């Protein structure tokens, strides 16, 4: 019973939040709504007995990614309204048709996959986090290490790209200060 109520409440909240993200013309509202939607999605993970992913969703998405967006938006002019226009009706029609096909195919997917058998069935009495740890460090060890290297590369590239010429700007300001002091 509680599961049904929680599912419908969380789905209504998530759809509403993501609707704001897509439709709002203010970048700050869109970002706040996106952060809220991420937290509500972690609620689905807790309903589905995936506690580890729920915590990871809150920590990584709402913590790291949204903080990164917030820092990135300091570089942009966010008070101005975002301009947008629907270019043609063709886009709207193709979009609605493709989403309809998408929903139908997603609904038909379980009918096709009736004969699916589970590779890693969860064991009674073993927690979700423990099971994920066992499977992650045996079967998925190589992808895990590759993901670690990928995150390292992404971090270095982010630092290099965002901080390019940032020291020069600071140096120029220092020189200007020195000029002002010497002028006095």
């Amino acid at each position: 019973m509680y599961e049904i109520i929680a599912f419908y409440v969380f789905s209504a909240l998530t759809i509403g939040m993501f609707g704001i993200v897509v439709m709002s013309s203010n970048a700050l509202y869109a970002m706040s709504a996106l952060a809220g939607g991420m937290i509500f999605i972690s609620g689905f993970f807790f309903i589905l007995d995936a506690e580890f992913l729920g915590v990871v969703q809150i920590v990584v998405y709402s913590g790291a990614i949204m903080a990164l967006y917030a820092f990135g938006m300091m570089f942009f002019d966010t008070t101005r309204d975002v301009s947008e226009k629907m270019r043609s009706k063709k886009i709207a029609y193709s979009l609605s048709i493709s989403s309809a096909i998408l929903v139908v195919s997603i609904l038909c997917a379980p009918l096709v996959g009736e004969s699916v058998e589970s590779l890693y069935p969860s064991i009674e009495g073993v927690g979700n986090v423990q099971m994920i740890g066992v499977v992650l460090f045996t079967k998925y060890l190589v992808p895990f290490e590759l993901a670690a290297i990928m995150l390292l590369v992404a971090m270095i590239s982010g630092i290099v790209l965002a901080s390019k010429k940032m020291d020069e700007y600071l140096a120029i300001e220092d020189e200007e200060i020195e000029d002002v002091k010497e002028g006095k």
Partner: protein
Amino acid sequence: MITLTHYLVLTGILFSIGLVGVMRRTNLLMLFFSTEILLNAINIGFVAVSKYYNDLSGQLFAFFIIAVAASEVAVGLGLLILWYKRNGSVDLNSLQTMKG
């Protein structure tokens, strides 16, 4: 009782919202937000399938998708800041420099 179909319908709805955002927005930052919505919708689908077929692979795929999304944001925002410093705009139309 909530079945797998409920979760798949929700996944479809959220993915469609993300697709609308990708088609509708011309601001690059807003396009990044829409791609985050797409990734999150698929994550819900993976975890739901993982629960109802009693298989942990879905949750692990969702975990790797989160890792990919984090690195995508780091690189994408770096490029976006660089582009904004150079052009003073993050609009998609400012990228059309090869227009004849």
